[in-house]
């Protein structure tokens, strides 16, 4: 049920056209060397927050407002965050979820 929910959310996010003044953040999330399926992605840019999810190959694409944002991935490991910048053109951010000193963190690929 949770899997269908994540897939539906991913499809909904991917099929909704982005705002005209928005950029996009895309890439892949890896965990233990494999693509992370169905992980929830939240991108917070100032007061605005947009949500998405990773597909079966760990890839994602989320339309975001332009500027500095925080990308958070939630999965079975808990949550991990990283700073990203959204521009008018799509920006690629691929991360590996790795265990750090204080829990899991995102390491850019």
């Amino acid at each position, binding site marked *: 049920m949770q899997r269908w929910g994540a*897939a539906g959310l*991913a*499809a909904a996010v*991917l*099929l909704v*056209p*982005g705002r005209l003044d928005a950029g*996009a953040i*895309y890439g*892949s999330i*890896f965990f233990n*060397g*494999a*693509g992370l399926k169905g992980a929830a992605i939240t991108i917070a840019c100032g007061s605005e927050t947009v949500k998405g999810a990773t*597909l*079966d*190959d*760990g*890839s*994602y*694409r989320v339309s975001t407002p332009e500027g500095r944002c925080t990308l958070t991935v939630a999965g079975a490991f808990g949550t991990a965050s990283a700073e990203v910048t959204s521009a008018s*053109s*799509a920006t*690629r951010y691929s991360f590996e979820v790795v265990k750090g000193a204080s829990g899991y963190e995102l390491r850019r*690929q």
Partner: protein
Amino acid sequence: MADPEKKGHHRWIEVSQVVAMPLVTLVVGYLLNSSISSSQTRDSNLRLYADMMGRREEADSALRKDMFRSILDTFVAKTTGDKTDPEAEVLNLELLAYNFHESLDLGPLFKHVQRQLTVRTQGGTSAPKDQSLLWRLERVAEEVKERQLAAISESGRVERGELDVTKAGAGAWSLGRSLIALKPGEQRGGATLCLSFASTDFAAATTEPVTHYRQFRVEFLDFAPDRREVELALAVSKPLQREQCQQLQESGSERANVETEAQFWVGPFGFPMIDNTRLSRSERCSVSVIRILDNSVTIAISYFPASRASLKDKPYYDEVLQDLLRNPSATSAK
């Protein structure tokens, strides 16, 4: 009875010994002489041919230089305040495109003329012919791309397909038989293809063609209807075994196999011979937009040897050295 017969045999042997030596010398001399003569003729013909080709190239370059300068001056002259004639501009661009499409990146000039025509059609001062000039511009670009793709497909591989810009992920793509099918219900961010071409360039010790296989993953990112361009992300694998190439890899292995990644905007004025991505082993790949109709974009993905890239394309020195070390005969034959 036996003695005269023996004597006769001896005489024949003596005679043949006397005759054989000059005869053999004569034959060997003749063969040697004719071999040297034919080799000299061949060398002389080659030299003559190379000389003629060189002179023709020189004359051709001079003619093209003059032609290029005079046409380009018509675009530059406008900045000094001369009036613009859109039809003349399109005609000049046609001349440039048909004569120099293999040696110059005419994309910026095409975009420049397109922008000017778009402004005229949107500004209300448009003559009825401006819209048709815009179409003519795209048609010229399409013809040039088709010519280049035909040349590329002779020694490389071209896969054609459609991109639906209203969709996302792998579902946005409709490609030919090189597309690797997804499992039922599987969702991926982009379409993956396995492309190959046979090449003798890297056959090492043999001259038999070797088929190179690579996976290409294309991801649709954005569409700008005003500029008529799509934004794509392309990931190309290193050369793979046939079986490995023809099936979807687990995402971790897929990532490990990636050799080159590129993200770019491409529209009707991106020409595959000029506007391409460099790969290892003196190979190139390109994604071209053939035409855009409403929400449907016709795409051609090409994978080809660097020898089919434009005249403007210069190989890196280390690439040339690697080619020489791998197969000296193939490189010298180029």
